[in-house]
C-alpha cells in the first residue's frame, strides 16, 4: 500500500513539474515580447541574448505610439466598434435565443438546426458577396459593415444563450403567462435578469472578437482615420516598421494589454463560457 501511495505522490510531483515547464513555455513569448519592448534597438540584436535590458527604455512605448501614426484614434475606433457590436449581439442573440428556447412553436427545432448549420459556412466563402452587398449599399469605407451584422444574431451566440435559457425552469414562464404577462415582458423582466452570467460571457466573446478582428477591417476600411488597432499595427509593420522590433513589441503589448486585463477581471465567467462551448452534444 505504501509503495502504491509513494508512486502516486511521485506521479503527482512529476505532473506538477511538467505543468510548470509547460507554463514557462507558454509564458515565454509574452516575456520575450515585453523584454524586447523595453530594450534599445541594438540590444534586441545582441548575441547571446539577454532577458533584461541594460537600461529600461520606457520611452519605447511613447515612440511606438508615435510611429504607429494615429494610435489613439485607432484605439478609439476599436473601442467604439467593440461597444456597439457587443450591444447589438446581446440584444439580437438574446431575442433569437429566447424564440428558440422559451416559446414552443411548430418547426422550431428544425429551424434551429438550420441556424447551427450556418456556423459551418467559412467566412472566405461569403466574403465576396458580403463585400458586393455592402458596396451596393455604399458602406465600403465606413464602419457599418463591421457593426450592422452584429444586430442580426450570429448563430454561435444564439447557441450559447439558448443553452443557458433552457436551464431556466419552464414553470417560471408559465406562472407569468397565467398572470397575464406578455412574452416580451417575460423576456425582459424575468429571463434576462436570470441570464446575466451567460450574457456576460457572450458580451465578452463578442468584445474579444471585435478587438481581434483583422480580415473585416482589412476588407472594409479604406481610410487610415478609420483603422482599428489590429489593422494599424499591420499597416505599421508592413510600411517600413517591420524590423523595428522594440517598437513592434511595444505596440503589440499595448494592443494585447486591454484584452488580458478584461480576461483577468472576468476569468471565472470566461473560462466557464469557453468550457460550455464544447458541451454541444
Amino acid at each position, binding site marked *: 500500500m505504501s509503495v502504491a501511495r509513494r508512486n502516486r505522490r511521485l506521479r503527482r510531483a512529476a505532473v506538477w513539474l511538467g505543468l510548470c515547464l509547460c507554463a514557462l513555455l507558454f*509564458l515565454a513569448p509574452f516575456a520575450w515580447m515585453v523584454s524586447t519592448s523595453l530594450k534599445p534597438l541594438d540590444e534586441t540584436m545582441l548575441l547571446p541574448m539577454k532577458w533584461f535590458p541594460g537600461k529600461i527604455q520606457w520611452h519605447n512605448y511613447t515612440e511606438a505610439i508615435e510611429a504607429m501614426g494615429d494610435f489613439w484614434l485607432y484605439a478609439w475606433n476599436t473601442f467604439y466598434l467593440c461597444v456597439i457590436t457587443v450591444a447589438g449581439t446581446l440584444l439580437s442573440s438574446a*431575442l433569437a435565443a429566447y424564440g428558440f428556447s422559451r416559446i*414552443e412553436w411548430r418547426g422550431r427545432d428544425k429551424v434551429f438546426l438550420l441556424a447551427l448549420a450556418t456556423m459551418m459556412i*467559412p467566412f472566405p466563402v461569403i466574403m465576396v458577396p458580403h*463585400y458586393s452587398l455592402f458596396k451596393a449599399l455604399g458602406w465600403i469605407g465606413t464602419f457599418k459593415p463591421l457593426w450592422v451584422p452584429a444586430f442580426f444574431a450570429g448563430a454561435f451566440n444564439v447557441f450559447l444563450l439558448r443553452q443557458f435559457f433552457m436551464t431556466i425552469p419552464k414553470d417560471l414562464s408559465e406562472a407569468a403567462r397565467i398572470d397575464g404577462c406578455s412574452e416580451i415582458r417575460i423576456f425582459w423582466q424575468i429571463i434576462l435578469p436570470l441570464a446575466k452570467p451567460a450574457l456576460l460571457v457572450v458580451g465578452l466573446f463578442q468584445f474579444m472578437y471585435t478587438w481581434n478582428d483583422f480580415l473585416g477591417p482589412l476588407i472594409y476600411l479604406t481610410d487610415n482615420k478609420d483603422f482599428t488597432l489590429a489593422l494599424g*499595427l499591420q499597416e505599421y*509593420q508592413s510600411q517600413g516598421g517591420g524590423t523595428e522590433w522594440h517598437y513592434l513589441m511595444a505596440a503589440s503589448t499595448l494592443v494585447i494589454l486591454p484584452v488580458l486585463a478584461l480576461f483577468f477581471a472576468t476569468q471565472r465567467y470566461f*473560462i466557464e463560457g469557453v468550457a460550455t462551448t464544447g458541451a454541444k452534444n
Partner: protein
Amino acid sequence: MTAMEGKRLRIGLLFIGPWIFGFLLLSVYPVVASLYFSLCDYSVLSRPVFIGWQNYGDLVFDELFWKSLYNTIVYASLLIPLGFLVSFALALMLNFDLRGKGVFRAVIFLPSLVPMVCLAVIWRWMLNGEFGLVNTLISPLATFLNAWIGTDFQPPSWLQEAVYAKLGLVLASLWCVGNAVVIYLAGLQDVPRHLYEAAEIDGANFWHKTRHITIPVVSPVIYFNSIMALIGAFQVFAVPYVMMRGGNGPDGIGGPDRSLLFISTYIYQNAFDYWNMGYACAIGLILFLVILGLTLLATKISANRVYYAGS
C-alpha cells in the same frame, strides 16, 4: 393548427426575426450569390458577366491554386493531430487537480486571447533566424545533438525557408491551444468518478484508465474539438497574411516558395488585389466543399467510435 399554436408561432417568429433577416441576407444570399459569381467574370466595379464554367476550368490549370490547396492540407494535417496531442495532454495534466491548477489553466489559456496580428508579429520575432527566442532555445540542443551523434543540424531561419516556414506557423498555432484545453478539461471533469474506482479495483493503471475510460467517455468532446480545429485550420488567414506582408512587401505573399500561400490568402489575393471576384468565389466554393466533405468524413469515421452517454 389551433389559434393558440398560431399565436405562438407568430410570437416565436417575431423573436427570431432579427436572426431570420440576418440568415437570409448574410448567409443564404451570399452562398447563392457566391455560386452565381463563381460562374461570372466579376470585378465588383462592373456588373457580373456570365461565363459558365470558365473559372473552374481555369482553376484546374492554376498552379498557385493547387499550391495553396496543398499547403492548406499539409498545414491542417500537421496542426490537427499535434494540436490534439498537446491540448489533450495538457488537459489530462490539469485534471490532476494539483496546487496552482487555476494559475496553470489561466497561463495556458492566455495565448488564445492574443489578437492574430499581434500573434503574427510576435512569432515573426520569435522565429527570427539570428536573434529569435526559438533558435536561442534550440541551438544548445542542436550543438549537443551534433556533438553526440555527429549530425549537422543548424537552427533554421524559419520564415525564410519553405519547409520551416510552415512548421513555424504550426508552432505559432500550437501556442493557441488553450481554448481546446479548457473544453477538454471540462469534458474530463464530467467523467463519472465511479468508473475510475471500479477500474482501480481491477488493478488498472493510469494508461489503462485513460485508454479505456477517459477517451471513450470524452470522445464527443474530442469529435467536437477536432471538427472545430478542422474548420479553423482550413480557413487560416490572418497569421500567414501578416507574417508574409511584414517587411517583405506585397511581392512576398506566400513567403519562400509560397510555402505560406493558403486557400484563404489566395481567395483574398484574387478578390482584393486582382479584383477577380468571380474566380475568388470559385476557390471559396471549393474550400467550402473540402471542409464539408472532410467534416462528413470525420463524422462517418467517428460514428462508431464516439460514445454518447445518453444513447
